[in-house]
């Protein structure tokens, strides 16, 4: 059973992990890569537990992304990359 349905725009892009992330109740993050999204994968998993969420997104957005390399248009606009010291 999916823990939650989360829209892609509510996920954060993590440069280090090269994945979109969303908080998991265990304290870690659900993760899904752009490659996964291009393949139509809609499950984002947490590496620390068995919980997973269903990512709500439009696969075409990511296919176009691949073709035209217009990555920035598709990332959540309001979010800055997570900076790591």
């Amino acid at each position, binding site marked *: 059973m999916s823990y939650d349905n989360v829209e892609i725009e509510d996920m954060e892009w993590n440069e280090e992990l090269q994945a979109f992330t969303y*908080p998991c109740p265990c304290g870690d993050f659900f993760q899904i890569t752009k490659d996964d999204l291009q393949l139509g994968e809609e499950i984002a998993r947490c590496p620390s537990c068995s919980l997973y969420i269903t990512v709500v997104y439009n696969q075409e957005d990511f296919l176009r992304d691949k073709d035209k390399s217009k990555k920035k248009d598709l990332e959540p606009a309001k979010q800055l990359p997570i900076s790591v010291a």
Partner: protein
Amino acid sequence: MEEAKRDEEEPKQQQIWSWGAGTEGQLGTGKLEDEYLPQLLHLPFLYSAGSISTLACGGAHAIALTSVGKVFTWGRGTTGQLGHREMLNSLHPKPVSSLQSYVITHVSAGWSHSGFVSEIGLLFTCGDGSFGQLGLGDYRSQSTPVKVDYFANNFVNQIACGMRHSLVMLKGNQVYGFGSGKRGQLGISRDKIKSVNLPQVTCGLEDVQIVSISANGDHSAAISADGHLYTWGRGFAGAADANFPQLSLSSLRCTKAALGWNHGLLLTGDEEVLMLGGNYHGGLCDLEKMSAVKHRSDSSRATLNEVIGLDGVKVVKIAAGAEHSALVTGRTWGWGEHGQLGLGNTNDQTIPQTVSLSPDIQNKEASLNVYCGSGFTFAIRCSREQIYESINPENRTMKSRNVSYKCSAVVSHVKLLSLFPHLQRNVWFGILKASYQ
């Protein structure tokens, strides 16, 4: 306010346990491991700054406030939430040096940000700012606590940090919200608000005297001086989101609210615990087996329910993590036996289980408190032996028998346990296993 400055005992009289998810160092054990049983911690460095008066536990970090107003943090620090001038995890409690010159009286830990309130009403925030949850007018993250200038001319009493938002309560009755508002958790507008990076007044509480605020996940709550509970943000149990504070049951007299990501706990003046939501994912509790206290006339709102298995046991403290809860009962004996009635099966039930803290605290005069982070829990015991000894030396033994506290963790995931076998091993089973002692 919280429990700040409540306990002034000698540090020696204080014991701290932690358990649950520990892979970011949030348990303070010095290890990056989950713990299935309560671990008694040795924190000499922390004790040098007095006893711990309160703890705040976030997504994967913890903040300790000491009796002399000093602040220590540990756990995940990758977005600056520890305030250590760097974006690194810390396995051990370290002082927040930039706050050394202030006497801090209130602290809060969100998913990835932190808030600190000083004795003279100043507010500081640090950590993840990507949703505006630091209230500093931008979307940057901060690795050192920064004074929130918006409140330069106000006296801040409390801050409550949620997943991506913050609430602030001023001296008086005004409540503010900032950060992500997508689920209505800021309470600042009838329209959908994506996020704001400066504090805005929460609507509908202007004429209410608020005494405490809470936030977790995308939920917000406030309690008024007359014990009324207001909630806003993400709806409980699949109910619609609320863009404004909603009064829950005007007959209710609450003394404390503790919010999770899909449930909330309320402590009433009668020392009874009620639960909001909880079955959103079908796992937290089985509402059909709980006795519904009362349904609101507006059926779109979540109902309040008694926690099954408590059977009238008085509760003195409550805490909520993302998907688990802990409470402290004031019962002298028998609770362990009683709590074990439902053990050994994984039916769709939620029954509070007793956690054994070693060394055993039964028959010892003590005050126990619990604090939950997203996937972990802390318990702190302060011995009151000395106090009673000085007040009434002859009666001490008798009093000790009459008043002892046991810590019970409400195991919220019995159904999920069967659905997510790996999760048992990693986090929730830790709590459950601890409960079986």
